[in-house]
Every structure is written in C-alpha cells, then in structure tokens.
C-alpha cells in the first residue's frame, strides 16, 4: 500500500464543482495552505466549505472565497484580522453562512466520521442557533439535537505521515484535522515530512491511516500569519 503521491495538483484534481470540502486548521494553525492553493489552481466552483473560520487576508481560504469558489460556508467564527474576502460577499448575499458553535462544529464532524447521525447537546439551547432543531430533556435538563457533518473531501495538514496514511500533528495545529480526516469520503493530507512506513512509533500516531486516502509531502509549508504579514495574495496578481 502506498497512499503517497508526488504531485499536489494531482492530489486535488478530482474535487469537482459542487463538492463539500472540509478544510482543517484554526485560523492559520494547521491550515493546509499549499493544498488550498492547489485547489484554487484547479478552480472548482460552488463548493460548500467546512472550516472553523472564514479566512484571513488574501491567502488560503480567504483567497478561495475571493476566487468565487465557495457558495456556502459552515463555520463558528467568520471574523479575523482581515475578514474582507468573506464579509464583502456575505453582506452582498453572494455566500451562504451556517453558523455553528465551535464545540458543536467539532462534535458534528466527529459524529460524521463515527457513524453517529445526530446527538444531543446543551450548547445553544434557548438561543437563536437552536431555532428549528428538535429538543429533548434528559435527567431534567434541556438539550438540542444536532446532525452530523460529512464531506466529499477533507484537506488537512499533519506533521509526519507515511505511505499508509498514518499521521502525527504539530502542537495546536492538530485542532480539527484528525476529526475531518474521519468525516470525509476522501481525505487528502499535506505532511511536513513523509517518512517510510514503520518509522513512526505506533504510540505516537494520532490519525491511523484507515482515515486517510492521499498523502503529499510539502516541506517547510507556508504559514498564513507569515503570508499575511508579508501582504501576500494568492494567486499573485500579474500586471
């Protein structure tokens, strides 16, 4: 078995118009910037994107939105230091937003990967985000029903990976990545380092390869914060 491939453009080539795509990361931490930029090059439209945020500046998810690739965003916090890409289109009615509390977003994705169609949570009860959702009492306390989230594709970032798709993560860049790996039909991973099968201590593996379909090595990946501080835009505007 070898799930690793060399070409990042091949890795995202099958993502077609209208797909639902989970994108890992919390802000720039754990965001698969190179995979996102490869997807921008491929250019599918009318995507539903699931991410904690809505992009920052003019790279990564913000750049995808600027390229008019995203018709719906499911996220918890569509604000950032520079949220204009999303804000302008949202206020113009060009992009739909499903706002989900952060813990509920994580659990909906986890449930999607775990074969749990719905669950009950106290989060959001009595708020406008509970409108239209079934409610139920357990042991005298009120809860709301939340449905799971699945996706056609997940684009995620990991620290080390091997040809079986086993993954480790780097510090808080773990965040949504292991959950999204489980919840997508096809999970595509960019790893900072591709290592031979058997080299990662099984005790250290966070995402077992069964959840992963494709691994591409991107050494020294770019970081959203650094790109934004350098005022980078993707794709670069050529004049």
């Amino acid at each position, binding site marked *: 078995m070898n799930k690793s491939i060399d070409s990042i453009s091949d890795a995202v080539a099958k993502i077609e118009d209208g797909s639902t795509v989970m994108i890992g990361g919390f802000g*720039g931490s754990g965001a698969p910037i190179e995979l996102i930029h490869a997807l921008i090059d491929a250019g599918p439209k009318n995507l539903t994107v699931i991410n904690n945020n809505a992009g920052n500046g003019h790279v990564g998810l913000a750049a995808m939105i600027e390229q008019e690739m995203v018709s719906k965003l499911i996220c918890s916090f569509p604000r950032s230091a520079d949220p204009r890409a999303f804000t302008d289109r949202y206020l113009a009615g060009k992009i739909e937003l499903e706002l989900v509390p952060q813990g509920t977003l994580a659990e909906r994705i986890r449930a999607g990967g775990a074969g749990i169609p719905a669950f009950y949570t106290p989060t959001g009860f009595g708020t406008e985000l509970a409108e239209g959702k079934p409610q139920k009492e357990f042991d005298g306390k009120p809860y709301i029903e939340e449905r799971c989230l699945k996706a056609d594709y997940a684009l995620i970032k990991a620290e080390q990976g091997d040809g079986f798709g086993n993954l480790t993560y780097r510090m808080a860049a773990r965040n949504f990545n292991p959950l999204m790996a489980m919840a997508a039909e096809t999970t595509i991973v960019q790893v900072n380092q591709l290592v031979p099968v058997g080299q990662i201590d099984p005790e250290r593996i966070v995402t077992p390869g069964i959840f992963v379909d494709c691994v591409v090595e991107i050494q020294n990946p770019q970081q959203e914060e650094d790109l934004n501080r350098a005022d980078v835009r993707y794709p670069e505007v050529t004049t």
Partner: protein
Amino acid sequence: MKQRLDEIKLSNAQIAWRAAQDLRDGAYVNLGIGFPEMIATFQPEGREVIYHTENGILGFGPSPREGEEDWDLINAGKKAVTLNSGASFFHHADSFAMVRGGHLDLAVLGAYQVAQNGDLANWSTGKGGVPAVGGAMDLVHGAKKVVVVTDHVTKNGDPKLVSECTLPLTGVGCINRIYTSLAVVDIEAQGFVLREKLDAISVDELQALTGAQLHLDGDINLLDAPKL
C-alpha cells in the same frame, strides 16, 4: 453621577485582579478572549492554575517575545502563546469534551448583558453584520463555575445586569457570579445577590444602576483592589 462613577469604578485590570483572587490552586480554567485573558496576569502567587484553550492546549503560558512566535502554538484568540511544564495537546472534539463534560473548574467570559436568572448575552448585538459565535455557547455549559467580568453599566450608563436579556442569548441560566466595576454579585435561586461593593457607593446607588432587584443575604464585603 456618570462622572463620579468614572472616578470610583474599578478599571478592567482591577476587575481582573479581583476575579483572579478566586482562582483556586490546581484549577483547570478557560479565560475568554480579550478582557478575561487579563486574569492570568494577576494569578496569586503560590497557586498553580492550568489554562485551557479551545483550540487544543492545556497548560499554556504567556505570549512569547516578538519574533519568537510559533504559529502552531496559539490560543483561541489566535495570539501566540508559550507552554508551561506539563502542558498537553488534543484535538477539538476532546477540547470541547473537557468543556461540556464538566471537567473545567472555571470559565470566565465577558458580557453585554447578564439576567437575574443567569442568562447571558455576549455574542451578538443583534444589529446585523457578520454573526460570529466561536466557542462562547459551548463554554457556558459544563464548567463547574461560569463567571462574568464586566463593567457594571454600558458606555451609555444602561445596566448590564438586567431582569431579562434583550440581546440574543448565548446561554440560558448559565452564569454563577459577576465581577463588575462596582460590585461582586452572585446569581442564586432568588436572583442577584450582592456579595461585595466598593466603599464609595451605597447599596441604593448600586441598585439604581442595576436592572433587577439586588438581594441582600448576610454581610456585604468590601470590594477593594490595588491601584494597577
């Protein structure tokens, strides 16, 4: 009245200092983004507190020096942080299991309004624009104690402690205690219970600045914070 209030009221740093005095040794604590984060600065000496951040760290420490940031090591406000000895990483579902599952000892949030029954409004002014909720609705459920740090009144002088929230709710009946710029108020079965107040303000004056009945139950202690 407004001018006098501005003279006597605690600053945000002083409110944070007061809230920090109640941090228990060995507590697992989540401090909301912004004002509540300041509480960590005033953690009393000799007490060990483990700070939780939604994006998957237990045991983070202060910001690194400029130029030493690692952008894979950030807090929920997306600010660079450092790690204390004994820190751990975990994914987002585990992080919110710690929140909802009742494992955190304390969550501290900011507020637009807190109602006498413990309802909190702190995520939306209801005025349109781009709505954003983050982890606020999760954090109000599950921590053993959920408290608020806030000015006692809005910039216009309207009460922030109210009989019923008029702004969109973050959670229902979820707040246990409020540290304000003028007082410390608990929320119990009967509603707001005044625990501490500044020496410079009378109970009647405080009641006039509060949108629901302030109940008195035993001693009212002196609210005092050092100049910061």
